[in-house]
């Protein structure tokens, strides 16, 4: 991992884009220049001094020219419920933290020829830079997205614009795409092969709630597809010192912040 910075990052915009879902854009030129797909920033949220811990947010997109990064966040606790009220101010971002998805590297070395990306809920965001990277490299890539409702499928349009075709979508309530969990779409894709040429996938990347990742990891293993996932645990330091965010793996406990957040699915010991 290259050197980390702690960068004062002005909030450029912070807008609701779905139910309890918000997009925040921050001016953070150093991190914008360095970040690679799957990495995150550890944010000190301004205006909330009683919240002493930073929060990790994956980078959804970056604009290296403008020096900005974008995060997608969901209101899940008191601090993320406070965050939408921030219209201006300076956050502090430690970053870019963590390792990166290996899809593009694998495409270059030939071990990945067809990729399938699976994003559940806000888990669609940390996969987007990987999708851009695979697209640019020329790797045939399909995308499966799942969300609770149509309104919560907030990343769909961006994936569609990138690939020029709609990702396979599922909603829990059936208001868009397949009704139910997106796992049935994953199963279908793995059995039918890549949409472009019907060839089997050899790279599967998944990010979303742990139960979803566990199921998809199982499907990937059964299909013999190399599978990666992005783990997120509660973090304190966010830089590998405190051992708060450990994940159980076949090699013992690993820190999700700096040994991850991307792990080989086969290494995870599920609780």
């Amino acid at each position, binding site marked *: 991992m290259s050197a980390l910075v702690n960068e004062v990052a002005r909030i450029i915009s912070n807008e609701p884009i779905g139910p309890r879902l918000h997009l925040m854009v921050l001016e953070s030129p150093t991190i914008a220049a360095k970040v690679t797909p799957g990495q995150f920033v550890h944010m000190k949220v301004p205006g909330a001094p009683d919240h002493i811990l930073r929060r990790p947010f994956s980078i959804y997109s970056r604009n290296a020219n403008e020096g900005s990064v974008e995060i997608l966040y969901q209101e899940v606790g008191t601090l993320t419920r406070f965050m939408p009220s921030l219209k201006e101010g300076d956050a502090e971002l430690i970053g870019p933290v963590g390792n990166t998805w290996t899809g593009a590297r694998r495409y270059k070395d030939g071990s990945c020829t067809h990729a399938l990306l699976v994003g559940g809920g806000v888990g669609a965001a940390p996969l987007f830079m990987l999708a851009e990277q695979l697209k640019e490299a020329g790797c045939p890539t399909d995308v499966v997205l799942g969300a609770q409702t149509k309104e919560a499928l907030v990343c769909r349009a961006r994936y569609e614009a990138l690939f020029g075709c709609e990702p396979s979508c599922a909603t829990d309530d059936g208001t868009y795409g397949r009704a139910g969990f997106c796992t049935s779409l994953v199963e279908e894709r793995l059995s039918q092969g890549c949409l472009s040429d019907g060839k089997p996938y050899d790279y599967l990347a998944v990010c979303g709630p742990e139960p979803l990742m566990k199921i998809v990891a199982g499907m990937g293993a059964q299909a013999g597809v190399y599978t990666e996932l992005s783990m997120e645990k509660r973090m304190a330091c966010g830089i590998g010192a405190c*051992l*708060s965010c450990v994940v159980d793996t076949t090699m013992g406990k690993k820190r999700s912040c700096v040994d991850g957040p991307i792990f080989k699915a086969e290494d995870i010991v599920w609780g």
Partner: protein
Amino acid sequence: MRQPRQTNVKLAVDLGGLHMKNPVTTASGTFAAGHEYSDFVDVSKLGAVTTKGVSLNGWSGNASPRIAETPSGMLNSIGLQNPGVKHLLEHDLPWLREVGATTIVNVSGHSFDEYVDVIEALDESGLVDAYEVNISCPNVDAGGMTIGTDPKSVEQVVGMCRKATKLPMIVKLTPNVTDITEIAKAAVSAGADALSLINTLLGMAIDIERRKPQLARYVGGLSGPAVKPVALRMVWEVHKAVDVPLLGMGGIGTGADAVEFMLAGATSVAVGTANFTNPTATVDVINGIIDYCENHGVGDVNELVGALQ
């Protein structure tokens, strides 16, 4: 990488035989062995780096979730996860020596003998400047706080450690007792050169939606600004009760916080949870102490120790 600024204020302190170039070290467990923070601060410029608690053969620690944020604080129940003393000796301590850091090794054990074994494994290495004997971790079932709440056990384990080393030995106290001065006196009578306090306060938080504890182990240690008044009170009490120097900690995040602890009787201070909020907190605290001294005509930080009026 942040460095302390230049000053004419004399910053060096003597913590029970340990020479510190300034009064600021790190609280064990919040700073690993310093390497992770070296993008942010020059660890060689700290008074000392206090390493994460180490046991003889390593422990895997507690189940997750291991932390929970609470108002102006946090609970942790890491459970002293560490790779063992051999790893520390081969990787972390040589690095600290190479960069020129002063090193305090926090020593943990499940039994009295394990504390001694850890010290014996380290003592000839020449890589340790002082020990901090951890008889106060609230997150393990054996050792830790179970020893540090009973004056007889404290005397026994500190006495055994004393025989194992001639290096400066700091004993870290738990606040989870009725009278911390009783424990402090026991540690000093058994040969502690200095005392550090406080370790975390045992606490709990509950997720009311799931009706489950926030921590897998149900309870954990509270740290951060929320505990500062308790820590300060205990430093003041112990300063009056014993004659050895004190390493004060508990919610220190600014130079002003550090000065409070020094006025209450601490010779040096440790920055812990504040590292998580602000990765340059250690150096910021040093600079804040310098600011205070310069603004108040204090030529030597030692003038502050116990100078409460």
